[in-house]
């Protein structure tokens, strides 16, 4: 690359905070024409915030952004587009029930309204050829395409806008190897045309394949940009983690009990390989992998809400019924979803009503809820999870994220669980509540419950678990005691798994 050319995009001294939380602190990035810059960092490190700022979705608290040496104000998506910036979203913004050609002209001015399908199709054809979809019929409905083709159409939409700066936000998260190759080829071509690329990813392999420079984010700060030639995987991983495991996490179990749950040759819809896991009493088993690795599917399968294709799950030696949540709850299997707002709590109901929701039957007689008994049990669960017992009638929707999460987990105490499944136990939870939740999970474990935690946060998995199983693209890849993992190893295991030769 021409390293003396003037910067196409330069963002300096960017600050952004949400309430008391600093999302970005003095961030600096600079990008020349024809360059590919990879943004790396753990969840919550600030990558997506800077992308949102550049694409005009979020306004920074402070800092300047220059394009081709001139200050620009990117206070809306329109302003950002007018400045020549386009974003390829991680989630598809195409409309499934429209054709490829119709999607390409959606939301842009190029095509007058009187153009008929034929005219649209011929103009779409030219754009599609540039993303390697020359053979695709532009009159195909989007919903008929493969995920990779959708992603490429998404990119084609951006090309149709003729942007100077193109941002890719984890474009390959849901793609297979061969499909990723197609996307990467297109990215390289775009750079060769002189466009500047910002490429956000979790996969290290891709970085070494396409990036010119790497910027690593850590706790809201950007590290100085590095030439990709000076880096290797180990260096990147060390820079991303940049800290030791603190005393956020409780002590591990000294000795494990007998096996409480075992999966044998379990095949779950949406996964490729078999899953063979063993969980002991008093053990926290951590499952980790990236989006699309299959950890969510496994948890749901054991909870009874995902289709099981083959294999069995045994609870205390007896086969576990995997049809529906009700039977799982009766057998003592608790399940906390990764997205509490969506399907973990009742925001409009009180703390007491939330806590008692899975075990109302136990505090009812002849179908009538015994209110005193319900309240006593709920207060007991609340006190276990450090939930304020004087606010049992407060609506859960009015609590902080950490307290909502305590309710989402705490409601399962009342079923007297034998196995507790928790997905993303601390997503959107502040540090104080995190430590409390970890401590509670460990205490439950010590009382003889088997706990399975799935998390995309490798640090959390490593700090909390006794045993760790890793997953990559629908396959179980490793299963060994936490003591035998180091964090760089674990990060590398879930991130690239042999994609990088060096």
């Amino acid at each position: 690359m021409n390293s003396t050319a003037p910067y196409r995009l330069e963002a300096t001294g960017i600050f952004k905070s949400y309430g008391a939380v600093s999302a970005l602190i003095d961030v600096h990035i600079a990008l020349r024409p024809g360059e590919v810059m990879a943004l790396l960092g753990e969840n919550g490190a600030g990558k997506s915030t800077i992308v949102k700022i550049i694409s005009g979705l979020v306004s920074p608290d402070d800092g300047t952004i220059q394009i081709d040496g001139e200050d620009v104000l990117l206070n809306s998506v329109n302003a950002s587009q007018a400045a020549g910036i386009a974003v390829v979203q991680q989630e598809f913004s195409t409309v499934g029930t429209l054709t490829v050609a119709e999607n390409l002209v959606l939301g842009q001015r190029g095509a007058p309204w009187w153009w008929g399908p034929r005219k649209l199709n011929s103009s779409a054809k030219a754009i599609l050829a540039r993303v390697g979809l020359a053979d695709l019929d532009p009159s195909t409905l989007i919903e008929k395409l493969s995920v990779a083709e959708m992603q490429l159409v998404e990119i084609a939409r951006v090309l149709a806008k003729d942007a100077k700066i193109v941002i890719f936000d984890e474009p390959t998260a849901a793609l297979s190897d061969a499909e990723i190759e197609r996307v990467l080829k297109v990215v390289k071509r775009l750079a060769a045309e002189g466009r500047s690329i910002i490429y956000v990813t979790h996969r290290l392999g891709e970085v070494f394949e396409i990036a010119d420079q790497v910027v690593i984010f850590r706790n809201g700060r950007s590290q100085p940009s590095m030439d990709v030639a000076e880096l290797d995987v180990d260096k990147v991983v060390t820079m991303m983690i940049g800290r030791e495991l603190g005393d956020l996490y409780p002590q591990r179990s000294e000795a494990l009990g007998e096996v409480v749950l075992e999966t044998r040759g379990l095949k779950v819809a949406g996964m490729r390989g078999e899953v063979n896991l063993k969980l002991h009493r008093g053990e926290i088993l951590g499952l980790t992998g990236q989006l699309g690795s299959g950890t969510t599917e496994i948890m749901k399968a054991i909870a009874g809400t995902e289709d099981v294709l083959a294999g069995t799950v045994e609870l205390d030696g007896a086969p576990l019924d995997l049809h529906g949540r009700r039977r799982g709850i009766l057998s003592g299997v608790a399940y906390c979803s990764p997205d509490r707002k969506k399907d973990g709590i009742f925001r409009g109901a009180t703390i007491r009503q939330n806590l008692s929701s899975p075990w109302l039957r136990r505090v009812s007689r002849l179908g009538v809820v015994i209110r005193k008994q319900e309240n006593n049990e709920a207060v007991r669960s609340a006190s276990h999870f450090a939930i304020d017992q004087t606010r049992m009638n407060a609506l859960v929707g009015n609590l902080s994220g950490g307290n909502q999460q305590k309710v989402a987990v705490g409601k399962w105490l009342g079923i007297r669980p034998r196995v507790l499944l928790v997905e993303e136990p601390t997503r959107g939870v502040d540090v104080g509540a995190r430590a409390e939740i970890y401590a509670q999970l460990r205490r439950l474990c010590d009382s003889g419950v088997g706990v399975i935690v799935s998390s995309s946060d490798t640090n959390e998995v490593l700090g909390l678990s006794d045993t760790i199983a890793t997953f990559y693209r629908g396959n179980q890849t490793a299963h060994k005691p936490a003591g035998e993992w180091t964090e760089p190893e674990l990060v590398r295991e879930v991130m690239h798994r042999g994609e990088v030769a060096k």
Partner: protein
Amino acid sequence: MTTVQGSAIGFQERAGIRRTLNAIRNYSLPILIALVYIVASILVPQFLTFETIRAILLATSVTGIIAAGMTAITLSGNLFSLGVTASVVLSGVIYIWVGSASGNIYIGAIAAIFAALVVGFAQGFIVGLGLNPVVVTLAAGAIIYGATAIVTGGKVVAAQSRELGRFATFAIVGIPLPVFVLVAFTAVAWFLTERTKIGRNVHLLGFNKLTARNSGISFMGTTIWAFLIFSVGLGVAAVLQVSQTLQVQADNFPELTMNVVAAVLVGGTAVTGGDGSPVKSVIGALFIATITQIMVLVGVPQGTRYFVLGVVVVVLVVTLHLLRKAGSR
């Protein structure tokens, strides 16, 4: 132990405002009704008479009982049953037929309620499969209407003896039986939705369908229960209605469905489900019956009555919605 406090300052204040707004929402309708009664008794000469109050209560009884039952459906997040009119006609016809044939009004009433339960169960089952409740109940209403019209040949089905009207004419200290039935059914519906496991599940399902599923609450089962509670009320109300008119025809009571829905909405039960109570819906029905009766007394023509009532309902529902939004923030 660490306690749970919102971000220190401001939390108490906000909670205070929220409480005030919720209080306004909870008591606005009773206060409004009281005001209407005071104003009307001053301005409308014949208003504060035994006959008027009796007429209002009688009109409230039918809509109120159905609205109390309907609340269970709304609370469960399944919106409304829009087939009320047709189902009431069906149960009414069955009451007259079975009651006349057996010569026993109790057997007639049980048959009418049973018919409502069968029809309601079928609708609850189909909605429980995941179909849109509005579409299902509208279609069911059309089918029931059609079937009743065919079987009765579209003619008036009239009671052969005045005996069939006893449920409406029987009175205790001048207050007709339907009013006591209204009170009793409201109490039962309240108990079922607020104090039982099924009722709690109805609320929780309405609050969040997905969380309910993850908590082991059956969508199908809970939805069917909600429709059954509704159907009992509907059957009872049909018997009381036909006891008053002593005859029924397939195209009777066209305004009933809308009045019931309006009663639930004005009462303040959330359209999205979860939040609300049968008692509120009955108060809503009382409000609607009162406004209607006042307009009848003053001599407002029917078209204008519908118009005014419609405007009042919309204004109240929008106000309640805004209060709820502000109160839950």
